[in-house]
């Protein structure tokens, strides 16, 4: 292959950069000065040795634990030498600014009360964010940069963005170590690729995304409200993604996600990845980490028109009734839109919904299953049903389940299988095993049919009271 002179010169430039360390420099301060504007270093107070004492001490502690390297005082452009990989930086009341990579192409501002570790490789710089937040600027076209968190990786080639971890880092709890933790990524400029065990998504300038581990506080057919575990108050409303354009063109919510939502139980612990689309956080992925600890709720609240409902109805977002691109249809939109505006300092997800109202007397589930009437002698009643309740007693071949404290317990037995006893027939042995594994005070969901009493066709043990 023959190269023309221009192509050859292009290779020469890039090879000098690759082997000779001639990476494009950061000229920001120089241009600002030439333009008569204050340089970045001038706008931020230069840290004093005392000011950095807290982070230095904290880093020192981390040094002993993690085998990292203690970093001394550093500020923008103060020292050209790179920060060694493995260095752990823990900030106190003040933040910390550092440059990473060849000619400092990654500018990282570690927020107060944060801990990061410098990782990665030459031209593929990384920081591991263990707690708190970082704001990053990456010179486009020099090298790659990523922020790694326990929720996933945010990778960029040239952009400005922030990553914030919220909530306490839990000890390993068998697959739920992320419980209560939230990651919020906000892209100011350019684009980032957010990846995790759930998959990946690209966030562009002005977009937010992240992950949250929490409890499903409420749900409808087309949304779920998730509250970070251990936190009181507001739940955030998440919708499925909209696919396919206008409804007339066949557009609508992502059907797979609607089916997933249908199968979710209120009270379940979930890990959810989201991204803001059409001004609202949309579900990219949701994974159940644990079944409900309290009374499980198994069906969705019936959908009603906006403005009619109470409690969880307040969560309903106007976009449920319209495709992207169409204007809001109802006045109540303003209320939700107001809380859906971009968040200020990356402290909260973009769309924080109004605080959900208690469901009725606070004891009943948001979404109640169809409740059959008691089957009295000779009284016409339902032939089958589904109940969710707590086991209050166990017999030899039966369990007594009470739906709530105001209703009497009902006795449930296994289905009869195999004909007469002399022919080998008897109670469903598999169900008897399930009965044996269930304990008094367990929450259960039971599908039953009437046959000389309530017979259990399906039993799910949802958790312990």
């Amino acid at each position, binding site marked *: *292959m*023959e*190269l*023309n002179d*221009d*192509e*050859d*010169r*292009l*290779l*020469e*430039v*890039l*090879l*000098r*950069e*690759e*082997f*000779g*360390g*001639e990476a*494009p*420099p*950061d*000229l*920001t301060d*120089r*241009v*600002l000065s*030439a*333009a008569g*504007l*204050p340089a*970045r270093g001038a706008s931020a107070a230069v840290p004093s040795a005392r000011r950095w004492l807290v982070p230095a001490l904290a880093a020192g502690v981390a040094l002993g634990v993690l085998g990292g390297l203690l970093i001394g005082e550093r500020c923008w452009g103060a020292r050209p030498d790179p920060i060694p990989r493995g260095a752990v930086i823990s900030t106190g009341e003040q933040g910390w600014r550092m440059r990473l990579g060849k000619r400092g*192409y990654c500018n990282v501002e570690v927020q107060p009360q944060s801990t990061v570790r410098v990782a990665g490789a030459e*031209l593929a710089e990384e920081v591991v964010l263990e707690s708190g937040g970082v704001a990053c*600027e990456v*010179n*486009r*076209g*020099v090298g*790659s940069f990523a922020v790694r968190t326990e929720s996933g990786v945010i990778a960029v*080639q*040239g952009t*400005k963005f922030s990553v914030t971890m919220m909530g306490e880092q839990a000890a390993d709890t068998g697959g739920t170590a992320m419980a209560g933790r939230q990651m919020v990524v906000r892209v100011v*400029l*350019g684009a980032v690729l957010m990846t995790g065990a759930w998959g990946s998504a690209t966030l562009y300038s002005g977009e937010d995304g992240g992950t949250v581990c929490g409890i499903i506080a409420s749900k409808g057919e087309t949304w779920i409200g998730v509250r970070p575990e251990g936190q009181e108050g507001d739940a955030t409303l998440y919708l499925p993604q909209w696919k396919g354009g206008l409804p007339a063109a066949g557009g609508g919510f992502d059907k797979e996600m609607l089916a997933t939502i249908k199968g979710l139980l209120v009270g379940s612990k979930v890990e959810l990845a989201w991204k803001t689309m059409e001004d609202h956080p949309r579900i990219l992925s949701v994974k159940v980490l644990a079944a409900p600890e309290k009374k499980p709720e198994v069906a969705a609240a019936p959908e009603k028109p906006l403005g009619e409902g109470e409690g969880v109805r307040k969560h309903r977002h106007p976009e449920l009734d319209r495709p992207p691109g169409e204007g809001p249809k109802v006045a109540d939109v303003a209320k939700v839109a107001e809380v859906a505006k971009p968040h200020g300092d990356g402290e909260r997800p973009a769309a924080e919904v109004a605080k959900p109202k208690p469901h009725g007397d606070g004891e009943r589930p948001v979404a109640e299953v169809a409740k059959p009437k008691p089957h009295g002698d000779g009284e016409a009643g339902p032939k089958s049903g589904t109940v969710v309740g707590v086991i209050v007693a166990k017999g030899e071949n039966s369990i007594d389940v009470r739906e709530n404290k105001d209703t009497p317990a009902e006795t449930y037995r296994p289905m009869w299988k195999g004909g007469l006893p002399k022919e080998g027939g008897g109670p469903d042995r598999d169900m008897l095993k399930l009965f044996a594994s269930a304990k008094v005070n367990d929450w259960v969901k039971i599908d039953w049919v009437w046959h000389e009493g309530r017979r259990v066709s399906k039993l799910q043990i949802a958790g312990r009271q």
Partner: protein
Amino acid sequence: MTREELVTLVRIHQAELYRYMRYLGAESPAAAEDLVQETLLAACRSADLATARDERGQAAWLRGIARNLFLEHCRRARSDPVKADSASVEAAEATWVGEFLRQDDGFDYVEALRHCLGKLDDRNRRVLEMHYGEGKSRPELAAFCTMTEDGIKSLLRRLRAILAECVKRRLAS
């Protein structure tokens, strides 16, 4: 233009402009840095920036300023003239857009080149390191490779051609 807007402008475009200046023929890193600074300041003062389109359009507009400044720089540097004229820099721009910016902002090209460098055999890679990294002269390289100086010149050009082809294949795939 506000300070924040200028910072954003610099952040987005400085790396490409620096490479572009070196590619056009800026004789040293310092000269390239000066020209990038002048380009960005000229853009900052220009009212056209407000009407500059998306980032890609903005980059093309900045390269236009950069070419004019580079030609002016060449005319000023009479004692050590850099050979360049309007036609040659416009041809260079076509190659830049057609090759380096083939995908997005050129970073894919850089990454592809890094990948291709990893595929070179040790000897050829060492020759590139000595030439571009350590600044070894052709006689020194000729001694290392037991080749003639002309042979070294041909080898370097051939290696660049191999790398360019590898990059094209990788970007195409």
